[in-house]
């Protein structure tokens, strides 16, 4: 076995080098950039916390983080509230042989392209779109109106995606729950509501938390959905980052904002770590 150890390292090396060169090193370089500064069009390579100070003092930068946190929290809560009943009904009320088909159907739209999914919501929400048309037909509004280009549209676009995701993770933890637990609760005199609150809900919490964490991470880092659906009233953090890159070519500032985004995600991970046994999946 000892002679094989070199061989094992040799087999591991390509993957390891790739990850180090194209993942770890770029993050380190980005961290360094965030401590540099762009003055005029030049990059000044002396350590400074200038970018982070700018973030704290310039309201539009800091506000984009607040906006992101608000939108992400709203999306996560609404998605859980919509997905839990759906997962519960699928797991408990739908005959077992139909469950698989029902789940596949629920995540079918997931396979539309990521960019196209937000565009599709634009078709529904824009002025003269399906929703506006429908509301005019039933007489609720008199003129065509737009429901896109605001925070609500961004939230709808996000919720659409994350309801599918959360339904999957919650369904997975519901079907793992042995029916005997609920029977035991019933035998001990608990009604359906008490048995749900004291038995089912706590035991499916890990599924909810895994889904909620994924929702948080994917939602707060997403650029497309707010860019297509959100309009230009307010910016979310990824939009601010992209603006630093594409309009201003300010890589140090963009790097600092990206580091802040990473820090927020890490905090979220630490907060949910006790529920997230990702290696168990």
């Amino acid at each position, binding site marked *: *076995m000892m002679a*094989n150890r070199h*061989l*094992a*390292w040799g*087999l*591991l090396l*390509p*993957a*390891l080098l*790739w*990850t*180090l060169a*194209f*993942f*770890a090193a*770029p*993050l380190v*370089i980005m961290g360094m*950039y965030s401590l540099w500064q762009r003055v005029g069009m030049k990059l000044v390579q002396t350590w400074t916390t200038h970018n982070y100070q700018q973030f704290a003092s310039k309201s539009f930068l800091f506000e984009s983080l607040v906006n992101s946190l608000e939108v992400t929290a709203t999306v996560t809560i609404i998605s859980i509230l919509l997905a839990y*009943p*759906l997962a519960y*009904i*699928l797991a408990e009320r739908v005959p077992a042989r139909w469950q698989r088909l029902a789940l596949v*159907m629920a995540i*079918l*739209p997931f*396979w*539309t*392209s*990521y*960019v*196209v999914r937000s*565009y*599709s*919501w634009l*078709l*529904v929400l*824009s002025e*003269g*779109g*399906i929703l506006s*048309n429908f509301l005019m037909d039933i007489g609720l509004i008199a003129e065509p109106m737009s429901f896109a280009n605001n925070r609500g549209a961004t939230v709808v676009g996000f919720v*659409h995606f994350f*309801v*599918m995701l959360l339904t999957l993770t919650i369904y997975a933890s519901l079907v793992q729950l042995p029916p005997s637990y609920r029977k035991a609760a019933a035998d001990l005199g608990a009604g359906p509501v008490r048995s749900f609150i004291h038995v089912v809900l706590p035991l499916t919490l890990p599924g909810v938390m895994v889904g909620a964490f994924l929702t948080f*991470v994917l939602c*707060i*880092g997403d*650029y*497309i959905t707010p860019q*297509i659906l959100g309009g230009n009233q307010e910016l979310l953090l*990824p939009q601010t*980052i*992209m603006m630093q*890159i594409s309009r201003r070519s300010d*890589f140090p500032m963009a790097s600092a904002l*990206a580091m802040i*985004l*990473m820090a927020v995600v890490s905090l979220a991970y630490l907060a949910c770590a006790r529920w997230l046994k990702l290696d168990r999946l």
Partner: protein
Amino acid sequence: MNIRTLPAALYVLLLYGFIFLPVLVLVLFSFQESRLPVPPFDGPSLAWYRAMLADDRLMDALVNSVLVGVVSSLVAVTLGFLAAYALARHRLPLAGLLRGLLTAPLTISYLIIGMGLLITFNSLGVPKSLWTIGIGHVVINLPLCFAIVYSQMGAQQAHAERAARDLGAREWQVIVLITAPMLWPALFASFFLSLTFSWDEFIIAFLVSRFDVTLPVEIWSMLRSGLNPKTNAIGSFVFVISFLFVLLLDLVVLRKRAA
């Protein structure tokens, strides 16, 4: 259907309606005759599918997407498989740390991975191209391939590998002739999952590309012209392709396991 199941049925119906609404609208108005994909529907017409096929940039982007997807997925599966084999079959020091490092990219936003690559390529003077997109896609798919293959490495293959070694097989023969064929479903699943992710990935491709772009980036630039049935057509087309990927994966891998 009694009074107790009615609310549940209604709820499911409403939520499925919400989930399917945008997709149905997308597909329906890809068959629109006139220039705007909004009601009233005046099709069906295949005019916008013809326009899509006649759009050279779009078709180039489609070919680019397939190229980048296939090559980067092959690289990701190969590197992931070799690393999984090394870590599952040999006791290496710091194995836990190495596993952690290899799966770490799963926990970082694509936006940040893409930005890191962009800054690195810029400061090294590496030109942005399909290659740089491919490099980025290997970064995001390698952890996935590694994790899937690693989770499927069991005692069953280890016995067969030992038998092969006892019969005089060299290590590379063991890997190519015993381990890889036995892990075929896992390798296949990793490949198609990688292909699906690469096919749909936008932000990294957007950041590290310049003249040659992949399909999501080209669709993104089409969006600037506003609502357009041609975008519906290409969107529906992508949907059908992705759906076929999933169907294939399901038929080959999951059915086989059940049998």
